[in-house]
């Protein structure tokens, strides 16, 4: 996917004026926030669980090589195969190779954000394979030819009416009319279409929420069961996962699953939690003949031990998106690449470069709500600020804003000069306000005054008045 993060400001403006998008966002956001609040309130030990989850991830990251190799050993012992991919190209090549060797035509795909990251669908389609997304949200955006706008609710930017219209256009069969108004009707329609695909697919691709080193299992959570069908019905199962998904044990996984479901959808446990451990064994009644895990690095190992190390704790729950006032206002597409919201604003510049992703870390008030709800206690504001530090050091910001900051800094570091210069400006501004207490418009503050008045200074500065008062005493 070609990033448009550099155009965030324009993307955001369009999103703010998109009435349908705003309706969809308003409806979705509140639901996630309220559900999480309720389910967290029901669990007094949530904070203890959070600390335990963080400790598991910190320990795993500190010993990542060990646990990844252990995972590979166990996958092999179970009769599966691990493929290591340093880059998106290598990952796509590994998947294409498996599909080619399996003589595949149709591929059923479960939801995978790393799949989006490496653009696996584009690669497969370019090579002539038919790919069908089986997660309802992913299916909707696939037929709409759009990228996901949320990491766990990819079609959250679409209204029910928009989805019904998409289905009507695409699934239209002459002479056949059926109602498509309620959610169950829409889901039923998708289910009928997808059922055939599951049964005829040659290869199933799923993502992974966790990889378990001690058992060589991969874990996914879904609320539709589509992942299970994608994994078990086709002859070949390919798991796409990034390297930081590994955890040491089953026991560790249970801690993280409890955090994930509550933080993501406000559920105590996701409807389907499935552990895949190797291909079909002799005595198994069903399951795939081949089991492959493609492990994607794509820059992650370089993050280890660096300034963004803590981002690798992320379990992709989406809580930071749901609680972000900027994400809630503009939606995920404005961020211009695969990962939106606060976590995306940290990841994107690391993966597509700071020159491209520069606006994202700046598009935050650093209000801290993301860090507050993050089940892995990732200090997202600190990491956003770290990007800004890199941006400043590389002088990437617009010259005008850099000069303004430098001029202010010059004054702020010289208290006496600062008093004099600021006092001059403030008294002038006060005079200009003509006693009205505010400005409806100011030439150098158009951004501010477009939608709000600017309160005027009261008069002289506090420091000047204080000195006078001390002088009189």
């Amino acid at each position: 996917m070609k990033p448009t993060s550099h155009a965030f400001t324009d993307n955001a403006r369009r999103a703010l004026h998109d009435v349908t998008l705003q309706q969809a966002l308003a409806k979705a956001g509140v639901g996630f926030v309220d559900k999480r609040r309720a389910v967290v309130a029901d669990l007094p030990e949530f904070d203890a669980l959070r600390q335990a989850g963080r400790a598991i991830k910190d320990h795993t990251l500190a010993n990542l090589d060990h646990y990844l190799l252990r995972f590979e050993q166990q996958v092999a012992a179970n009769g599966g195969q691990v493929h290591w991919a340093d880059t998106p190209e290598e990952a796509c090549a590994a998947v294409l190779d498996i599909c080619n060797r399996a003589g595949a035509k149709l591929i059923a795909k479960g939801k995978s954000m790393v799949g989006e990251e490496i653009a696996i669908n584009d690669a497969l389609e370019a090579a002539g394979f038919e790919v069908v997304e089986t997660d309802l949200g992913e299916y909707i955006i696939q037929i709409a030819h759009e990228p996901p706008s949320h990491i766990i609710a990819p079609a959250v930017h679409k209204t029910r009416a928009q989805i019904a219209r998409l289905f009507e256009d695409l699934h239209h069969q002459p002479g056949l009319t059926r109602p498509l108004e309620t959610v169950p009707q829409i889901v039923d329609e998708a289910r009928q279409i997808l059922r055939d695909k599951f049964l005829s697919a040659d290869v199933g691709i799923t993502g992974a929420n966790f990889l378990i080193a001690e058992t060589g299992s991969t874990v996914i959570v879904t609320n539709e069961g589509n992942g299970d069908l994608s994994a078990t019905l086709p002859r070949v199962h390919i798991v796409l996962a990034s390297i930081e998904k590994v955890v040491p044990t089953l026991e560790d996984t249970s801690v993280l699953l409890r955090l994930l479901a509550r933080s993501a959808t406000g559920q105590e446990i996701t409807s389907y939690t499935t552990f895949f451990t190797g291909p079909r064994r002799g005595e198994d009644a069903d399951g795939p003949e081949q089991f492959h895990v493609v492990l994607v690095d794509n820059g992650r190992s370089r993050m280890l031990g660096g300034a963004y190390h803590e981002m690798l704790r992320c379990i992709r729950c989406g809580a930071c998106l749901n609680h972000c006032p900027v994400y809630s206002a503009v939606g995920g597409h404005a961020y211009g690449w695969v990962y939106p919201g606060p976590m995306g604003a940290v990841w994107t510049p690391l993966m597509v470069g700071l020159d491209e992703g520069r606006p994202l870390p700046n598009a935050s008030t650093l209000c801290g709500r993301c860090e507050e709800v993050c089940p892995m206690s990732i200090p997202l504001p600190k990491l956003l600020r770290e990007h800004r530090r890199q941006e400043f050091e590389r002088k990437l910001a617009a010259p005008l804003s850099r000069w303004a900051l430098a001029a202010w800094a010059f004054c702020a570091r010289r208290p006496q000069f600062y008093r004099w210069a600021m006092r001059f400006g403030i008294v002038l501004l006060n005079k200009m306000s003509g006693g009205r207490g505010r400005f409806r418009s100011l030439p150098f503050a158009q951004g501010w005054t477009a939608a709000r008045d600017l309160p005027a200074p009261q008069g002289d500065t506090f420091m000047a008045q204080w000195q006078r008062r001390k002088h009189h005493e």
Partner: protein
Amino acid sequence: MRVALFVTCLVDLFRPSVGFASVSLLERLGAEVVVPPEQTCCGQPAYNNGDFETARAIARQVIAAFEGFDHVVVPSGSCAGMLVKHYPELFRDEPETLARSQSLAARTRELSVFLAESGVEPVIDTHFTGKVAMHDSCSARRELGIHTAPRALLDKLAGVESVELKDAEVCCGFGGTFCVKYPDISARMVSDKAADVIASGADVLVSGDLGCLMNIAGRLKRMDSPVRVYHLAELLAGMTDVPGIGDGDKT
């Protein structure tokens, strides 16, 4: 008791009455208030724009200016958060300055917390009556965990009926230079906040942070809302005869 006041740049420049209200409240506790003249700003604009060197230079100034005071009081959760949480972060690799910044952090309190912790019943002589909504800044709420202190103070005002805002934990959209860099998104956030203020039925909106207040007041005034906006210190000090934020003598 000597108390050093960190005025904050916004109060110094835009709303000195908040500084005088703070002084007045502290003096009623029996404190001798000192305003060190070497202060300008806490350095947040530099820090949040990635200019850590300037932020460190300003932090050193502040640390030096406030050395030797047992109590440092700040009428802003945002600036107090900078002194308390971020200065030590900035000097992580400079042991000597780190120790001094930690000492400053230990001595620094946001105004409402200082008043509430003092144990002295603040002498409040406001005749104000009406419904008051308290807006928590994100820094106050999340960096410093301030929630009960300002409400406990408001509860002491006989004429005040406190109301809570819907979505109180959501940012108002000020965000320092964010409102300049992303005015459209900021405008959307503040109009949501202003709508919640109006829906609360409050006559007056207060907060411990002037940045949020200028932002929300600016939107309320643009909407011709009659809600008056004050810093919490002004309400507590009985200074609501001064025109509210965004109101003038002629409005």
